[in-house]
């Protein structure tokens, strides 16, 4: 009986695009759209790419969605272990971030990566935390980060506006603006987004809040996209 040889991950199939994260006054915020692209086809339009990992930590993931699901499973296992220990201690956001780094780096060294770029965001010991880990095991902590196209399109906008004491409303507006630009220019982006934050506990004791998906407004009449504008259409480009 003919058997296929063992193969390793060579390319992602169903993918998520940009995730953006920023630290702000009350904690840390992540934003991402809800699209799972099948190549350039906008196939799965309600993929929740931001998920809660523990009471004070969330992750936002771009790249291969099936690998994201695998990561969710692993993190859930770790969280369950913590609960079962029942000793008043659970892993901090930084420890979760380090754990992901160790896993991703090892799989990369074996030539079989989990094809993701992800942000780990949390709030612990009265300090916010934001880290980046990716498929080759790169990891770093930063005040604001973005994966995928967001790294090119969103980060310059954030650099202009960012301040460690950004209010929540300002932070949301900034993230929505960035995802709007990503939607205009990234062909695998989508107008339906989620915003999530981790802060000090609110009156119900919750630190994590992940919004339901909602649509962002877009404007296609601007000069850039309108062929009636004098400068457009002459060379075939829309820049």
């Amino acid at each position: 009986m003919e058997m296929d040889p063992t193969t390793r991950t060579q390319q992602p199939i169903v993918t998520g695009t940009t995730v953006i994260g920023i630290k702000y006054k009350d904690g840390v915020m992540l934003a991402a759209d809800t699209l799972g692209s099948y190549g350039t086809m906008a196939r799965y339009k309600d993929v929740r790419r931001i998920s809660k990992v523990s009471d004070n930590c969330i992750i936002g993931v771009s790249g291969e969605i099936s690998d994201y699901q695998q990561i969710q499973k692993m993190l859930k296992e770790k969280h369950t272990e913590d609960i079962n220990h029942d000793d008043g201690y659970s892993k901090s956001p930084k420890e979760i971030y380090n754990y992901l780094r160790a896993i991703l780096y090892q799989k990369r060294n074996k030539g079989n990566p989990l094809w993701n770029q992800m942000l780990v965001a949390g709030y612990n010991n009265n300090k916010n935390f934001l880290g980046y880990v990716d498929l080759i095991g790169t990891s770093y902590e930063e005040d604001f980060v973005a994966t995928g196209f967001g790294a090119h399109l969103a980060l310059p906008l954030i650099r202009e506006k960012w301040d460690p004491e950004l209010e929540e409303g300002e932070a949301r507006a900034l993230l929505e603006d960035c995802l709007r630009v990503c939607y205009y220019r990234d062909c695998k982006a989508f107008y339906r987004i989620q915003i999530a934050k981790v802060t000090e506990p609110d009156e119900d004791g919750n630190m994590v809040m992940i919004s339901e998906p909602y649509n962002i407004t877009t404007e296609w009449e601007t000069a850039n996209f309108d062929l009636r504008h004098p400068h457009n259409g002459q060379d075939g480009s829309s820049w």
Partner: protein
Amino acid sequence: MFRNQYDTDVTVWSPQGRLHQVEYAMEAVNQGTVCLGLRNKTHVILAALKRSPNELACYQKKLFKIDDHMGIAMSGLTADGRSLIKYMRTEALNHRYVYGSEIQGNRLVLDVADMHQRCTQSYVRRPYGVGLLVSVVDATGPHLYATEPSGNYYEYVAMAIGARSQTARTYLEREYLTFNECNEDELIKHSLKALAASLSGDTELDVQSASVSVLGPDQSFKILPDTEIQKYLDIITLEQGNNNNNTNMDVDQDEPIIDPDA
């Protein structure tokens, strides 16, 4: 208690519901020299009595660092203790690599206790013949744990194990309520006094046989060098005057009082 027909294998119960091999292993801990530990709200101190097999030999080390935030004292079969130390150090270091942080003390102690238990339920292994006192300062504060060959482990505010440890325990039971008000120096003095209580006959406590470690939130696990131990022993002697007691040293009465913080 000893020598009956149900004590050859650890996998055999006695009619009284006891595993004699495990109990014999616990006796091995009592044959080792005394170790003790005590803590207050921030620091954990371990102290141990070192022994040398003969005049020509060195005194055997009893206190070991597992990680910056954790250390142990062992009593019993020190060779068994060494393999446990290796395991604990590997686990602590691996945790640092994977999670970027210090391992939680109670979780590692639980793992070690599980290792002990596996040996009480296997036909091909024997129980570990060593008791450990584990001092740790982690995210949940200072802790002192004791493991036993049976696989049980307990947390203590103060504890002593090994030969003649009952006298040390009696001393600790008398004094432990004051520990939370003690500073690091006072705790160290208590540990040495408790250690001295377990000496046999006329033996004196000296820097060769006394071993003390300190551990605190800003103090990574440190075994005190001989010079510092000597200072504490001298202070204890001065405080107790020239009474006939176990910590009696030939101290020149004209020497100035040593400042322990110097």
